[in-house]
């Protein structure tokens, strides 16, 4: 068993001694496969630099001959041009396994349930959220069925509230359900029913809600507050607040950060999360907001080992849920255009930053 596979087999939220050997293995493979990445690693001797994600969008790496791509994941592109993550079969399986292990480590999907996916049907999209969740759900023994309530059409996302509601009612009549996907779409269902005078739609006991992405910009003009959503959804669907969890992730990162019952996004054993001051490259004090840097030694077919994201976050230890793993708190995205002044706007007018 390779160090990477040993790491994946570790307890999901405990300290894993396999982490550093896995990093070394991953780095060695990437060095060999991506000479430009090796040059980047050697740029400043003694340092292990993180790849800043905007780089991947503008200058993607050429794929080496020994990598056979089986899937290309895309980001949602809600904050600009979508990025693309190519994966071979082995790395794809690791990603699915990692997410499945995170779910299991948090005791999710402990009983049989029907999945109602408020996600684009994976047959119609390459968005990472849809593809990875679909693959994970299919591997979860307690997931009896999966129904997709949205799809990517030729003109963009398509979501039909009435059809989704009918599917939801049908599934709920069979037993516990898991609503999984974009909170904006779930909100749309609740809003539609409330407008029609229905204030509740209790789901069978044991049901749960797993949200992911789209808190700010999934639907134009419909910003969502996570705490408010949790309160509303809990009352509307009669699901305890502790059974409403959010997932934080990005298409470039094989680790997904799933909320514990206390609402904290714990960092699994195969990841290291740091909140970084990009000026110094060092961690900001615990609890302070920095740029989220992730080291995840699970991808050997593309240089995603250590990435500096465009997300702001804080990282802390000591959650009341009992897990020993640190947890991160997302604090929004970096925004590029700071002031709409005459000297700033020209940047956009003439083509933006390099």
């Amino acid at each position, binding site marked *: 068993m390779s160090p990477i596979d040993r790491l994946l087999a570790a307890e999901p939220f405990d300290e894993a001694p396999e982490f550093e050997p896995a990093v070394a293995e991953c780095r060695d493979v990437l060095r060999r496969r991506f000479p430009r990445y090796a040059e980047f690693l050697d740029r400043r001797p003694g340092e292990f630099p993180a790849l800043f994600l905007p780089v991947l969008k503008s*200058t993607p790496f050429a794929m080496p001959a020994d990598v056979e791509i089986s899937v290309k994941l895309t980001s949602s592109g809600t904050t600009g041009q979508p990025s693309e993550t190519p994966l071979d079969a082995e790395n794809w399986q690791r990603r699915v396994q990692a997410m499945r292990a995170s779910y299991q480590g948090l005791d999710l999907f402990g009983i049989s349930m029907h999945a109602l996916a408020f996600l684009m049907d994976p047959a119609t999209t390459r968005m990472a959220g849809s593809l990875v969740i679909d693959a994970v759900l299919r591997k979860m023994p307690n997931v009896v069925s999966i129904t997709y309530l949205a799809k990517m059409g030729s003109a963009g996302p398509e979501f039909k509230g009435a059809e989704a509601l009918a599917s939801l009612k049908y599934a709920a009549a069979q037993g516990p359900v898991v609503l999984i996907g974009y909170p904006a779409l779930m909100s749309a269902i609740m809003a539609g029913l409330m407008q029609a005078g229905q204030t509740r739609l209790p789901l069978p006991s044991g049901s749960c809600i797993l949200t992911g992405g789209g808190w700010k910009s999934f639907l134009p003009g419909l910003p969502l507050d996570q705490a408010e959503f949790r309160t509303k959804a809990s009352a509307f669907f009669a699901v305890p607040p502790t059974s409403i969890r959010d997932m934080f992730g990005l298409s470039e990162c094989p680790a997904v950060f799933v909320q514990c019952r206390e609402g904290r996004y714990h960092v699994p054993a195969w990841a290291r999360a740091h909140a970084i001051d990009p000026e110094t490259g060092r961690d900001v004090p615990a609890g302070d907001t920095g740029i989220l840097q992730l080291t995840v030694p699970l991808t050997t077919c593309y240089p995603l080992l250590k990435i500096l994201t465009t997300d702001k976050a804080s990282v802390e230890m000591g959650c009341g849920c009992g897990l020993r793993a640190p947890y991160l708190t997302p604090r929004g995205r970096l925004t590029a255009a700071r002031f709409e002044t*005459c*000297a700033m706007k020209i940047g956009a007018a*003439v*083509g933006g930053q390099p």
Partner: protein
Amino acid sequence: MNLFRPATAHELRERFVQLRRAGRDLTSIPLSEVLELLGRLRPLWQPGTEYHDQALALLTSPWSRRAVESALAGLALGMTPELVQAGLTRELGRIDLLDAWEPDPWGVGHVRGYPLGVVAQILAGNVFLGGAIALCQSLLTRNAVLLKLSREDSGFTALFAQSLRAADVKGLATNAVTLASWDSREETLNDVVRSEADGLVVWGGAGAVAAYPAERCKGRVIHYGPRLGIGLVLAGVDLEAVLPGLAWDVALWEQQACSSPRLLLVEAQDDLPARLARGLQRALVDVRNEFVPKNLSLDEKGEVLSVRELAWWSGQAEVFAPADAMDHTVLLARDATGQVPLGSRMVLVQPVANLDAAEAALAPYRAGLQTAVLAAAPARWQGAIDALVRAGVTEVAAPGAAAARFLGLPHEGDFALRRLIRLIGVDLGAGPLACPGRELKATALALKPAAE
């Protein structure tokens, strides 16, 4: 001075009615009284005064103390009666243009300047002096003014207006000035401005400019922005002598002023572009002592990091920057990139073969050009200016002086004060096309300035 926050279009329209009335009163005030008012205002802005201290407290977070002190000193200097008179004479052609009819040598044709009426100034938040300058310009041209503050306004415009009120012991101008604020997305209010203002001066970004297109506005529309500050450095220049000035121009307004250089075109001879990039990096380190860099936000740091990293990864530019700080970055482009980074003392150095190539390199930015800092040997200035003007530049400054003047020089191709008045002619008639046998001497005499 209270900030006017109109809730309805009616309220705003009413304010225009009041301003129009006050503007008529302002028209009859002689220049001497306006100069007197500025003369009383000037001492209020000397170092150590209450207003000066308040302004320092307001402004030294976004700007360095040195920049704020210099700007306030420049503002006070600009209110010196002698300088105002010299500036007015230069901008308007004659100092009494708004006060008296000037006859031609035959006493037949007469010319005089009239204010536009009520001028709305849509202010930007990039440089804090904008509102104060707009106020002074309105006074000098005897226009009533509605200043719509930017949402990023520092508070300085209100402070300056307050000082004007304190100095306006005769109550000449107070009623002719309104400081207003509303959400720029409030189209019903914007529409009132478009339909009521006799003059509209729009400062700022593309959004502000697009909101007030000339064809939808009743009055004269003057757009200032958005702009890209550039520089041109030519072979033969004494590089070491100009580097401190270039760094000064980059740092003074943190590249938020229209004139702040962000793109430097450098003649590619004797390794000049690389020498300049290295030297400018050093000069930007030194200028930290004059203009202490502000603390960058996480967003700004992210932006600087992306510029530096993308330059390295794309191979489009070599990065000259301190490894442990993000307060400035010099990028030496390997080819024409067509992309200029934003703010945070980031400068793109682009090599060009000669003046013709510089002119061509500026073509994509033509609509955004205004000020060029020119670093060249004296003998090359005229040729360089000609090339810059052909490219679309309207102001040329020596290194270290990109944002030094605001009165007495044209702004964007014309004198700003002249744009705020209308030249009116009175023709008593002479020559073969005039009806003969008329007696108009008495009228000519009546139009003659009283002093004559």
